[in-house]
């Protein structure tokens, strides 16, 4: 049974961050297990009270109310009065925070977000194609060659080194792994076929897309989302400029023109990696390798890779832009937009690659 005797707290001479921890423990011990406690608080001896002292008094008030008791301030000093007068608290119950979404609501929200994102992508695609077409024929809304060139340098030229290096390493690795198997069957010469087709149809476009998604797709999302946060995109709209035309068209053209060129670089370096393994490890002559490669590779293989590269470029640029334009919040939102643009682009690129593989397989 609960103790019905009143609880008296008489604090002083200081009620500050030094003494509050002890007073807090004192409250917890005195009120533990009590129902409807009658609490008297005496602050007459307090000659110094800081914010933590005022917070302690408020906590005591709340705890007494929670335990359905009563609190009476039996006396206070000037210092206590001044500190308690300084701070204000809600006298009514605050609006409760929104309840977390339930299972089905979460699923519904995810579906709505996915559909919204798809609609956004379609709008961005049509806007960009519309303004690109208009920019090519209309003198007044012509595409600024300087802006496109700048994007070509940033997306294309500055990526040549990393694309070349990674493609060379992948070419060397794939060739080395294959060479061991081929040698067992005396089929060394077919390394040229394997490397040529695998690199031009699959590895070249895919390696390039993965590197560009990480390097340029993230940059597109970060730039656009920062511009949204700092109201630069709103400023463009107020000036009567369509943000898709101003921000997206140069990036779209830049990546569409450079991605196939980067893919050619990736193809060349990947095949060169295979050539190095073939001539050093499998003792195939350079002439034999080239002859075999030329006879194995068809124009269609090269074109398949190049068509894929343009599709991958579009996925990267539109996903980056969509994540950028849809950003919410501040710096954290920019980080999220950037991360999600890379993840979604990579998924999109790999899904598109699978789709193309099926298409070309059954198309043959």
């Amino acid at each position: 049974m609960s103790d019905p005797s009143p609880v008296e707290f008489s604090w002083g001479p200081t009620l500050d961050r030094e003494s509050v921890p002890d007073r807090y423990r004192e409250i917890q011990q005195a009120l533990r297990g009590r129902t409807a406690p009658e609490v008297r608080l005496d602050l007459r001896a307090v000659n110094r009270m800081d914010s933590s002292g005022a917070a302690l008094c408020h906590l005591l008030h709340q705890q007494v109310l929670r335990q359905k008791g009563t609190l009476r301030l039996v006396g206070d000093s000037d210092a206590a009065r001044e500190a308690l007068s300084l701070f204000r608290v809600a006298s009514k119950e605050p609006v409760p925070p929104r309840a977390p979404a339930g299972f089905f609501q979460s699923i519904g929200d995810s579906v709505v977000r996915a559909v919204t994102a798809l609609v956004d992508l379609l709008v961005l695609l049509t806007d960009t194609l519309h303004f690109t077409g208009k920019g090519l024929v209309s003198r007044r809304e012509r595409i600024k060659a300087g802006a496109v060139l700048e994007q070509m340098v940033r997306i294309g030229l500055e990526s040549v080194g990393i694309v070349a290096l990674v493609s060379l390493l992948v070419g060397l690795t794939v060739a080395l792994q294959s060479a061991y198997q081929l040698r067992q069957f005396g089929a060394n010469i077919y390394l040229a076929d394997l490397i040529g087709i695998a690199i031009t149809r699959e590895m070249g476009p895919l390696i390039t897309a993965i590197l560009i998604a990480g390097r340029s797709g993230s940059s597109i999302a970060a730039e656009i989302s920062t511009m949204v946060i700092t109201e630069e995109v709103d400023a463009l709209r107020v000036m009567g400029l369509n943000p898709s035309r101003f921000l997206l068209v140069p990036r779209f053209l830049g990546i569409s023109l450079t991605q196939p060129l980067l893919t050619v670089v990736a193809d060349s370096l990947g095949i060169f990696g295979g050539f190095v393994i073939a001539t050093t490890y499998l003792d195939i002559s350079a002439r034999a390798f080239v002859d075999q490669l030329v006879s194995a590779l068809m124009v269609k293989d090269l074109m398949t890779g190049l068509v894929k590269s343009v599709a991958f470029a579009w996925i990267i640029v539109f996903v980056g832009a969509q994540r950028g334009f849809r950003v919410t919040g501040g710096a954290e939102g920019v980080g999220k937009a950037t991360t999600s643009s890379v993840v979604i682009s990579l998924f999109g690129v790999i899904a598109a690659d699978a789709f193309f593989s099926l298409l070309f397989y059954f198309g043959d």
Partner: protein
Amino acid sequence: MADADPIVVIDRLTAGYGDRAILKDLSIGIRQARVTAVVGPSGCGKSTLFKCIVGLLRPWSGSVRVAGQDLAALDEDRLPRALARVGLLFQQGALLNSVPVRENVALPLREHTGLPEPVIQEIVALKLEAVGLSHAIDLLPAELSGGMRKRAALARAMALDPDLLLCDEPSAGLDPPTAADLDALILRLKETFRMTVVVVTHELPSIEMIADDVVFLGRGGVLHYAGPVAEARRCPIPEVMDFFARRPGTREEGTCSLLDLMRQECES
């Protein structure tokens, strides 16, 4: 349109973000060739009002018409022409950070006029000189102080000599002489180009110097007063009286001091 006619007509406007209404059932008219100050406590919807006027935010209900046109309802072909008649100075400037000040100010001129490039460059120089930034013409926004960025943004907002210039706290963060220079510039723009200027400000001296009319928004986006400044001083609404008398404002409803709470003297 006569001078006394409103260039902006806001009729029963309710607008907000997500499911939170910021402006509620607001009806005001901004009169042409006058300076209107929009005042009110933080979060009352002053910047939201500007976004509704320029069509960046669609009203939930009601309408906003600028020179007879609802900007939020215009199509892509007609909107740029209508927006060319409106200039907006954003609270943080919103300059394009990747290009220098010169290009920021030149951008609307290039997009909306067929002026030769030398003329555009001359206008840019004149506008920047007017806001005291001729020395910073080739600097990037990141190289400017907060006050300089705001002045550069003002130069951009007035690049096309718009009929309607909206300024969101133009003199916040500026030293008093520079703020007074900007006030004088706003007055000159009104008198020379018969420009309608709407200014969000918290500074009483600035309101007294430039404003013909004042719109006073209260907490929760409700309208307390809209009309001439001289009559606002006689407005009996406590928030408006406190503002003009520079008295401490009324505390937020539903709060009481800790002392009153402990003494059980809070109103329920």
